[in-house]
């Protein structure tokens, strides 16, 4: 495979596409599939064939506004239809070349206008199971450029220059990490892709793997070339069967095209990737636990240092990055580090994909430049809180993130800004809450998640999260005291400072941030025995005999 051959493939794809007058793109992401996108596509294919029009029915990855699914986009007119049912197939095919179908069209201009798509540039435009579709949109060009025109150091330099930081949550500078692995001693090195997205309400990585799997593989191959590895692992959770099947297809097609395997592009570079399935443990998203799981051991974290960059898989230097980080690599190599660094804020460059969920009109995936105000994401792109309710808080960073109140909506989204207000970027989940959410109950929900997902290795996380849960439950039930609240805060500090891995260290975030910004709700529960949002079921206070605890 050479760059000329890639261009040849791209040309033949566009020639093939030119045979059609219309392209009907059907979103086949998990969310749309679950709403019947599969049946819709079949219906569209049948009607298109019967109509005799030259129509290409293409299945694509996630288009973004998942709550409006199933989504269909008709090109070249760029008409977006939402809530399409298989019974609408005839109307859509019939409308081709004429007036758009009434009542199906969705007006999401504002939603899309504010977005900048880098990671999701192909999502909704290519068939994730066709490598040629990916190649036709500059796919694998970056890999071949890197292999034939750049030194490994040159690649690392370009990534460093871009200012890209790890998208898994930690925000570690990617270029620095690559440089460390490249410098680590040893012949045998590994690259690992962390696709164990476990946060409740987060689905960025799933959509990338389902909608554009080759982008991840290309990013990994470039990384392997840069750090001197020739074996890669993609660790995907087994709860993502569509992602697994599309990745498997993508790997097979990449091997068939000679883009994986031995002597890629007639260079000495050899690289192949294996998929490893996670068995549903949230903690396996922590890098050392993930590596233990790949090795076939119990998925528990271990103290760092040594970092995986020095001693990772089977003790070898290992580069581990998140799906979205790898998805950013190819565009950076293609367009240069400066182009990427031109987007975003001072210390957080580029764009970030967020999964907007909760009490928000446009639930789904959005990609925005770093530094954008939370208000813009929620009110403009997300369409605000539905049903006339008022916005109360947004939780960023999954179960271990903090809740940000309405007063702080003008905060620019970046790693450091979120950290400063007691939350984290995390992998990019954003859960919006309105006046019907009780913040104590919200904290309790996330603590319960961390409690059940703690691996049990270190004491602060294992027993501490369980104690936090007990104390929060007491408060929710109206049985808490102000002493319990003090106890809770003290406990949070110990868990935060002493836990072994990120899960424990960040588990108190939802509690601390809700106590910081919504303390009045805690006091209402404790002192006045009432839940302001009406969520917690507090019985009328009955004087009860103090229960003696045996010890």
């Amino acid at each position, binding site marked *: 495979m050479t760059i000329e051959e890639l261009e040849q493939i791209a040309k033949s794809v566009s020639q093939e596409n030119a045979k059609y007058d219309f392209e009907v793109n059907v979103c086949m992401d998990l969310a749309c599939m679950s709403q019947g996108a599969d049946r819709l596509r079949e219906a569209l294919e049948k009607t298109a064939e019967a109509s005799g029009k030259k129509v290409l029915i293409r299945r694509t990855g996630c288009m973004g506004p998942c709550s409006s699914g199933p989504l269909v986009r008709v090109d070249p007119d760029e008409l977006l239809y939402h809530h399409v049912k298989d019974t609408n197939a005839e109307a859509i095919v019939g409308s081709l070349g004429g007036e758009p179908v009434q009542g199906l069209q969705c007006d999401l201009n504002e939603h899309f206008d504010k977005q900048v798509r880098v990671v999701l540039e192909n999502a909704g435009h290519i068939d994730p199971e066709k490598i040629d579709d990916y190649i036709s949109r500059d796919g694998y060009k970056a890999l071949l450029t890197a292999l034939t025109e750049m030194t490994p150091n040159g690649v690392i330099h370009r990534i460093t220059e871009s200012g890209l930081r790890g998208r898994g949550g930690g925000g570690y500078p990617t270029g620095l990490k690559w440089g460390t692995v490249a410098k680590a001693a040893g012949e045998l090195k590994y690259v690992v892709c962390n696709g164990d997205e476990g946060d409740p309400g987060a689905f960025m990585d799933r959509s990338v793997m389902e909608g554009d799997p080759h982008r991840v593989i290309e990013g990994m191959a470039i990384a392997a070339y840069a750090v001197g590895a020739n074996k890669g692992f993609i660790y995907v959770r087994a709860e993502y069967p569509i992602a697994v099947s599309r990745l498997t297809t993508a790997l097979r097609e990449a091997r068939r095209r000679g883009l994986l395997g031995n002597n890629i592009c007639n260079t000495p570079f050899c690289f192949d990737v294996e998929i490893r399935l996670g068995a549903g*443990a949230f*903690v396996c998203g922590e890098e050392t636990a993930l590596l233990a799981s790949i090795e076939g051991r*119990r998925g528990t974290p*271990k*103290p760092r*240092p040594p970092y995986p960059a020095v001693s990772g898989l089977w003790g070898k230097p290992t580069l581990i990055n998140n799906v979205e980080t790898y998805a950013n690599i190819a565009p950076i190599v293609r367009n240069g580090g400066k182009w990427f660094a031109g987007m975003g804020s001072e210390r957080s460059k580029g764009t970030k994909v967020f999964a907007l969920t909760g009490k928000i009109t446009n639930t789904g995936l959005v990609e925005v430049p770093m530094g954008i105000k939370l208000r813009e994401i929620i009110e403009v792109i997300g369409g605000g809180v539905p049903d006339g309710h008022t916005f109360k808080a947004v939780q960023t960073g999954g179960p271990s993130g903090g809740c940000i109140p309405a007063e702080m909506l003008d905060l620019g989204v970046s790693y450091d800004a979120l950290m400063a207000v007691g939350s984290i970027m995390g992998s990019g989940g954003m859960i919006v809450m309105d006046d019907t959410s009780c913040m104590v109950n919200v904290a309790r929900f996330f603590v319960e998640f961390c*409690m*059940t*997902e*703690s*691996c*049990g*290795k*270190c*004491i*602060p*996380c*294992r*027993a*501490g*999260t*369980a*104690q936090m849960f*007990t*104390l929060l439950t*007491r408060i929710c039930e109206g049985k808490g005291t102000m002493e319990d609240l003090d*106890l809770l805060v*003290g*406990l949070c500090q*110990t868990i935060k*400072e*002493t*836990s*072994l891995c990120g899960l424990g260290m960040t588990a108190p975030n939802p509690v601390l941030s809700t106590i910081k910004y919504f303390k009045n709700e805690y006091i209402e529960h404790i002192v006045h025995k009432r839940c302001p949002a009406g969520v917690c079921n507090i019985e009328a206070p009955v004087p009860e005999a103090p229960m003696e*605890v*045996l*010890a």
Partner: protein
Amino acid sequence: MSESMGVKTLIIDGQELSARAGQTILEVAQENEINIPTLCHLEGLSDVGACRLCLVEIKGSNKLLPACVATVHEGMEVITDSERLRKHRRTILELLFAERNHICSVCVSNGHCELQSLAQEQGLTHISLPYRNPALTIDASHERFTADHNRCILCMRCVRVCAEIEGAHIWDVMGRGINSIVITDLHEDWGSSACTRCGKCVQVCPTGALFDKSKIGSDHPKYPDFLPYLNLMREAR
């Protein structure tokens, strides 16, 4: 470690000390009779850094490091005792006491228990956290030993000694988080497991979770000191 031979100098609690490169902070502290509380650590077993009691402060860094696994660096300044560390250590011990049913007065290890000694050493006089009082079982199926999960603190010393020293690996962990529990074989009774009856796990158990049936009442000291000696003899062979 051999590749980075060299001597490092560091300061622990104001004392200027020297150490071999690759040594852990804990090793250096113990050589110089500086006490750092430990629980999951045991000389002769691999370190896991799980109990978090040996966390120490490093000057110039806000992050606490586990002394049992953190290696020394040239010029590092270690503080092993401070109000912050004492508070965390007491909370961790409280968490352990409240996690399962640790009732010293009726425990076979009363007076010989590492958890109890640590609580005394750290000045822990009462538990302010709610007791969880879980309903846990006692496995008395083994002809010589008993496993009382009420007293287990999940330090994993039994798991490590069985896998690393005895080579039988009949102990392991089942479940996650607060529901974790040590098991024998694939969760079979200890008595019908492939246990070699060597008793190493009982000797290294810091509490009364694993005990010898032939010992009565509180007359049950444990002797984990055999481990470094055994390792030394094996290396010498």
